[in-house]
């Protein structure tokens, strides 16, 4: 990754979820788009406030599940009918009811793995370095008891002075300028 210099964004810290949601809603209606909230537990209201509604995890999961059922059912059919046909007490080679069970298990296996790893991939994880970890108060709060709103410098509306005074209007516990 190329080294980047300068400011990543302004990070405002709040003590309660209500303050965070209030600030995020106002920032969104003021026209900020490149921003994110950081909370110690899932806070749907905050996601809605910054205009994030659609995640594609379910779609990835569905595709994975279809792949699993197709893979196992075709494998079973190919093995039992063409590659290694066994006559078991005169049952048909294509005994599909018996094939359902492993195909069912693999549907779940593929769907589950796709949901889990698809979620991580969509989130861009694993990513052990992130500019926010440079903020002195971020790591002690974001995964424990504090609520953060970060307005990022890549947003066209971002201006260090103006954005800072905009955030100060919501009486955050602190505002930190985060470096890359």
């Amino acid at each position: 990754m190329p080294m980047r210099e300068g400011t990543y964004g302004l990070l405002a810290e709040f003590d309660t979820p209500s303050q965070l949601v209030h600030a995020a809603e106002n920032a969104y209606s003021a026209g900020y788009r490149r921003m994110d909230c950081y909370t110690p537990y899932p806070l749907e209201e905050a996601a809605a406030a910054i205009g994030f509604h659609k995640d594609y995890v379910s779609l990835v999961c569905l595709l994975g599940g279809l792949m699993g059922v197709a893979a196992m059912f075709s494998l079973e059919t190919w093995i039992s009918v063409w590659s290694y046909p066994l006559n078991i007490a005169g049952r048909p080679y294509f005994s599909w009811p018996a094939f359902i069970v492993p195909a069912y298990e693999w549907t779940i296996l593929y769907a589950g793995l796709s949901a889990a790893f698809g979620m991580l991939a969509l989130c861009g994880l694993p990513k052990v370095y992130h500019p926010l970890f440079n903020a002195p108060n971020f790591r002690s709060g974001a995964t424990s008891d504090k609520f953060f709103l970060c307005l990022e410098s890549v947003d066209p509306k971002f201006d260090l002075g103006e954005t800072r005074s905009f955030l100060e209007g919501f009486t955050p516990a602190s505002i930190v300028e985060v470096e890359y």
Partner: protein
Amino acid sequence: MATKGAPVNDPMIDPITGEYVVVAPGHTFKSVTETISRIVLTPHTPLGWYAGFALAGGVATVLLVAVLYLFLTGVGIWGITIPIAWGFAIINFVWWIGIGHAGTLISAILLLFKQGWRNSINRFAEAMTIFAVVCAGMFPLIHVGRPWLGYWLFPYPNTMNVWPQFRSPLLWDVFAVSTYATISVVFWYIGMIPDLGTLRDRSKSKFGQFIYGMFAMGWRGSVRHWVRYETASLLLAGLATPLVLSVHTVISFDFAVALLPGWHTTIFPPYFVAGAVYSGFAMVITLAVPIRKFYHLEDLITLRHLDNMAKVMLTTGLIVAYGYAMEVFMAYCYSASHWEYFMMWNRMFGPMGWAYWVLITCNIALPQFMWFRYVRTSIPLMFLMSLIVNTGMWFERFVIVVTSLYRDYLPSSWGTYRATTWDYATFVGTLGLFTFLFFLFVRFLPMIPMSEIRMMLPQAKVQPESGNVVEAGH
């Protein structure tokens, strides 16, 4: 309910519903984080932990010795003979995997039903699932006689040009159990990522920060990530639910597809699943009672949890009782088959009839005491009850496996079964292995999901139109 109407002074009782609370009042985001992460991050490991760890490790060594001797000698060291070719190995396999099922039930099914109380016991119930599957998965593997060829069970291209036979329930088992193990581990790990992030941020040691940091994968609590995370958790729960039902169903097919009286019955799948959940909840209580005491987690694992788990056990216990009753009805009244009739008579009054009555006492008679609220909310009694049910469920599998096999159709082929020292050593060894893994888990990983407990606190809710008002702490 006894507490309703009367003035309530106990802070652990919700004044409105009269039920025990799920989280003790007065907790904040910080105190929850502190209470749970302290157990893992403390530099002073309690002496009791070392003692228990050493003891469990010692018992697990017995397993190592037993399996080593087995590999050197063969399955002849066990009590299995013809006609009882499935002895302790299969009994223990079914018993352990059944125990695992309660973990999935708690983490998946209760999540879908929005049962908030499950949050505190969810993580270690999932850990229990994984360790139980580790113990369970070993048994079929060492039971095949030549375990170093175990990989032949998987369909892979080989120079022998041989492929597995997909019409056999024993092969279905391979797919069911391996999928179950994989999905359980993934579900457990994904659920733990936010908490690993917390540990990374709170750890004082460089090594801890590095290790937890690697496993947390850079989790930073972005709400976009949280939304995807929540969707993935729901999807995994939705997938694990049919999975857990299918796993024990497939295991029951191992029996039900055979033509043997006592095995060849359609009631097996539902009755196996109910029995699995029954014994699994018992094991959760067996583990939860000492853990909450030792680590002072009475605020987070409350009497409400014991009460609710007792009710689930009561329900599944009755389903199991129905299963037993149906077996008797089918054999004596409905089948009109001499073989079925004899199997049932032999199971109850034959030379191994005592096992059947142990099973009825432990699984049906004694658990009825859980109808009393006093029993459900008494910690020592519930602990005792959990041990009774676990014993009963082990005997259930013993009765199904052994008393069906040892006297089948032809009297000249009848036999008897006596487990050897090595059978017992292997079984006791897996108990040690299970406990050993559990000790490692409670020491190095957060055993209660912090993010989910935070979500249950009253101050976690967003107050409408009160953005700038700082809430009074609850």
